[in-house]
């Protein structure tokens, strides 16, 4: 009896040791891959940060409508964030390459599926970035136009337009990522409809003033000389 237990323990220990031994090269390869990727990520992050600072990336973002640099903390400035994202991407890639070294079918499948998903992630990020830029541009256009037309609810209109475009971009990004497509579509429809309704109300609140102005302008065209606005600008 004792001999059998001892034999069973010896066999399981031997299996464990042999399995661990088989894993060791892969583990070493993973650690080496991680170390190399960390080093490469650090170098690349430094290069990217210097490149972004040289092209005044932070200032250009302000021109595209993103918050001014005063609202960012020094360690979270856009150029630093971008460089850290690049570094994280490189480290993640190194990790996946290291995992594939285990030479197990499951890990190979995992690596292939992750790499196959990367284009979706990149596509979603691009959609979000472009959507954000367009949203801010349109929001600013609407705000300036509304203020120049003396709309009291110009800011509401501007925010509404901006969020309309952002919601659209987020929905497109989630569809690109193939996440909860049915729920996202429904939620998007409800949210989009709500924003459009809010915008319509904002326009309706100002339309009375606009129609009055339009009617006055038409009436002034038929009179000999406009006495409503004697100012001539050019």
């Amino acid at each position, binding site marked *: 009896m004792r001999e059998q237990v001892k034999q069973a323990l010896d066999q399981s220990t031997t299996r464990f040791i042999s399995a661990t031994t088989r894993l060791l090269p892969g583990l070493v390869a993973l650690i080496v891959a991680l170390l190399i990727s960390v080093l490469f990520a650090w170098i690349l992050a430094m290069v990217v940060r210097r490149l972004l600072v040289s092209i005044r990336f932070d200032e250009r973002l*302000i*021109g595209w*409508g993103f918050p*001014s640099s005063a609202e960012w903390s020094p360690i979270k400035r856009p150029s630093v964030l971008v460089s850290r994202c690049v570094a994280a991407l490189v480290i993640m890639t190194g990790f996946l390459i290291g995992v594939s070294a285990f030479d197990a079918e499951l890990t190979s499948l995992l690596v292939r599926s992750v790499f196959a998903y990367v284009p979706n992630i990149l596509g979603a990020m691009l959609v979000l970035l472009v959507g954000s830029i367009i949203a801010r*541009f349109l929001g*600013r*256009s609407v*705000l*300036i*136009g*509304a*203020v*120049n*037309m*003396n709309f*009291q609810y*110009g*800011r509401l209109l501007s925010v509404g337009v901006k969020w309309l475009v952002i919601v659209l971009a987020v929905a497109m990004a989630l569809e690109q990522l193939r996440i909860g497509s049915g729920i996202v579509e429904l939620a998007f429809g409800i949210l989009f409809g709500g924003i459009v309704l809010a915008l319509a109300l904002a326009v309706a609140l100002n339309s009375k003033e606009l129609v009055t102005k339009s009617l006055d302008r038409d009436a002034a*065209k038929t009179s000999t000389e406009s*006495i409503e*606005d*004697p*100012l*001539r*600008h*050019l």
Partner: protein
Amino acid sequence: MEGDVVVQQHALGKIEDLDAADLVVGILADLDQETAATVYEALRTLQGELRIAILSTNVGSVQADPDWVSSRKGPLLSVVPWPETGPDASNAPMQSISAAYQAILTAGEMLGARAGCIIASKFEVVRPHWICQLVQPVLETGFDLAIPQYPRRKFEGLLNSSIISPLIRCLYGKRIQNPLGPDLGFSRALFEVLGGSDRNAPRIHPLASLTPVAICGQLRVCQVHIGPRILPSTDWTNISSLLVQALGPVFLAMERNAACWQKTRGSIPVSGFGEPSAAPQESETIDVNRLVNSFQLGIRDLQEIWGSVLPPTTLLELRKLARSSSEQFQMPDDLWARIVYDFALAHRLRTINREHLLRSLTPLYLGWAAGYAREMETANEGEVERRLERLSNAYEASKPYLVSRWRWPDRFSP
């Protein structure tokens, strides 16, 4: 040929038939037959055996009496029916006039003319000699650019009075009332200076560039007193569109000629011709409250945009100004001058989209107009002149601020 792009085909044929001319006159204003005949009569009084090519958009007046121009003695007149070029004048008047200028300059170059004249305004009372007065300094006295000086009405041409004229005066050191014309007399030397700048390049705006190019090219500039004009009754979509169309080319010209104006200090008057005439002042009451409300709405909603263009001290002054009542509302001249300079610099640096930038200037411009309208409500012409002279002096006094910010934008970044 480069000019073919802007000269319509049937007009091109007629110009090639003419072969050459000494003087090219472009009539862009919609003149009736009687006025057109008066203009032709006036041109015949010019001295010398001149070949004058008249480019007229008023086809009706030409066809009414086709033999008229060839039946008299004196300078030889040839009339070329000239189609309107450019976009619809009522929606984009600056672009329309600019396209017409470009076409006339091109036609003048094709004909080898030694002088040119453009008549774009309708006048309240047509005096034939006014037309000749735009041409005579160029033909007879050797000037290269003759700019009109209209009798000033206090509530007309505010954009020119508040920004364009004092800005050009401060930058280039010449006191010119209407740097953008639109009526002008110019010499062949100006063709050549403009031609050297590649006139058809998209960034060159003929209307906004004529005066700066003439001054920076060391050409001789004069002003000519001509009568009150009827301001065009175009249907402006809104003031912000006007600001974009008028100020955009002026700021671009400012950027292009930076090396010239940074060396200039002070200003001097230019030579004048003709007798000044008075214009009856309006007695209308301006709704200052509406203008102040527009300004206050801008302060409330556009702080974020102005914050990327204007320094904090300027924003603080504007916020204090917004708390003033309509009766006491007055934007200081030095503040207004610095605002214009900050916007010009932001236009150059592309801090934000250029069209957004210029449109966001609208509430500030209306704020200045409110203070001016309140102050000038009962003013006579002399008081108006003194008031605008103070404004121009404020621009000149603030020029060191502009030069510093222009040279070191990062140092003064808001």
